[in-house]
């Protein structure tokens, strides 16, 4: 499978009132054509920051550094490349779709504007293509839908409009940051299904960020688990969700109320650490039931397993 985006050791620092705070460290992953990579983690683990870094949408004065960043064969020299790629190769969709659409324009106009800007289409061609895109994402009949304003449509429909806008950019990579959070479960499934179908058809490499482990399990081809700004586990979705190796992933997956669970749900003691006061060594070790002596000394490296899964944990050191 063709590799479209490669990130090696991405580090992001955000500017705060009292200095810079490192929010993502040594993040490395690759996106392949037609595949969905789900980035899973709890609030504040740095996944959204990573996504924003890749699209150049971080707050001013943020600091982004990496060892390698290659998009579609083109290596980037610095983070400014990300701003260039946004809308021209990398498309984004975000949570709360209605908030991301201009309330003064009907949705048809938004799509037409994007088409004119990114593909340079003429008015009539743009109009026809806009209608085609709206139908493609399921808003039929397009002649009616294109005249609606965002506030007249539901959250789910607006999310589809954002997908249509992404289609309009004809991107190679789609970064979706929690696009279905806040939608109903049925809608969630539909929207997720739509994006997966389009990814396969258009050959998009999708980075899907979510905290919803159930959703990730359903749609991901590959998965990445983040904790306190680092990737702690990575691999094919089936392996990560069915046979998790990192204690955090195991604990996270065990927290979910399931068909058989009654009484107490297993939960992880303690709280997600504050970035300002990260524990020494492995950030998860204070909450880990299987910690070793070495865990609070140094940050574990990423250890490769025979099946291709990569885990940042000393327990897997000798595999």
């Amino acid at each position, binding site marked *: 499978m063709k590799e479209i985006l490669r990130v090696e050791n991405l580090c992001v620092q955000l500017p705060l009132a009292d200095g810079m705070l490192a*929010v993502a460290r040594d993040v490395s992953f690759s996106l392949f054509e037609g595949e969905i990579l789900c980035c899973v983690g709890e*609030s*504040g683990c740095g996944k959204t920051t990573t996504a924003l870094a890749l699209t150049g*949408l971080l707050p001013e004065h943020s600091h982004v550094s990496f060892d390698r960043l290659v998009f579609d064969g083109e290596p980037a020299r610095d983070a400014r490349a990300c701003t260039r790629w946004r809308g021209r190769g990398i498309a984004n969709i*975000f*949570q709360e779709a209605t*908030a991301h659409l201009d309330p003064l324009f009907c949705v048809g106009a938004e799509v037409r504007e994007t088409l004119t800007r990114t593909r340079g289409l003429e008015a009539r061609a743009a109009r026809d293509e806009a209608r085609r895109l709206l139908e493609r994402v399921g808003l039929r009949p397009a002649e009616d839908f294109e005249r609606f304003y965002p506030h007249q449509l539901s959250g789910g429909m607006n999310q589809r409009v954002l997908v249509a806008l992404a289609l309009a950019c004809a991107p190679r990579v789609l970064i979706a*940051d*929690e696009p279905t*959070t806040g939608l109903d479960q049925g809608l969630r499934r539909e929207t997720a299904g739509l994006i997966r179908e389009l990814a396969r058809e258009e050959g998009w490499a999708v980075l899907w960020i979510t905290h919803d482990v159930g959703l990730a399990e359903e749609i991901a081809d590959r998965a990445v688990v983040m904790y306190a700004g680092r990737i702690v586990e990575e691999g094919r979705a089936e392996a990560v969700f069915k046979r998790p190796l990192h204690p955090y992933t195991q604990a996270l997956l065990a927290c979910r109320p399931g068909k058989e669970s009654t009484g107490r749900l297993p939960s992880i003691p303690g709280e997600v650490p504050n970035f300002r006061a990260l524990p020494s060594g492995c950030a998860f070790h204070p909450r880990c039931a299987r910690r070793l002596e070495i865990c609070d000394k140094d940050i574990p490296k990423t250890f490769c397993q025979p099946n291709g899964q990569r885990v940042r944990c000393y327990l897997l050191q000798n595999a």
Partner: protein
Amino acid sequence: MLRNFLKKRQTRFGLILIGLFLAAGFLGPHLCPWQPDAVDEAHLLAPPSRGHWMGTDQLGRDVLSRLMAGARISLVIGFVVVLIATAVGVFIGATAGYFGGALDAVLMRFVDVALCFPVTFLILSVIAVLEPSVTNIILILGLTGWMGQARLVRAEVLSLKNREFVLLARSYGASHGRIILRHLVPNAAGPVIVAAVFGVAAAILAEAGLSFLGLGIQPPTPSWGNMLADARSTLGVAWWQSLFPGTAIFAILIALNALGESARASLIHDPSTPFGRSGRRPLGEKGAPR
């Protein structure tokens, strides 16, 4: 929030200047050798000298002592007017915003009617009937200046009353009065305080204007406005008679505006949440990044 406000340079500048005026107004008359009414016949229209630091007017009265007495009057009028206006405005605005419906409609029409009153003519009529005392001026300015506060408070209350913590308070049995006084009004205070600070400036300016026209504080009681009126005839020859009262008005307005601007910057945006006071989730936790 309050700490941020007090740390700003603008705030300190404004507070120091106003502090000076307050000291001048309340302590000054005790320290000053001349009474505001006292006539020094030896020095009519005299320029600033050791005996009269700011000179005298055409009746031989010391400008500095009149200035300080005027400061007290201006400040008292400014603050009391705003106190009345804010009290009435908050009451009407909060009631209209919270209860909504017919009450809201009636009160807001009442506000619209009150806004149509031309203040100057109202004062003229009142003065024609009653005497133009400090109390009457305060009452008129106060009772014609509450409408802006009412609208501000109503707008804030409308958006606050559906906040989760208000709904929860209703669910555990909080009375309407408790919700309005304990939760809604304090949370609406930001814009109200900013408007109040600017309101003091407006009230002082209004009083100065009225006194200048002879409709406000009547001589011989000194007010910066009527001191300027007295100085009209001597503009060309006695610069000290008009410069000092004029500068005083200018200075106090600058101070109040600085205070108001700095209040607007620190009280309207709550730095404890990046999104302001809306009660939405902060950056980095589960939720929209922006």
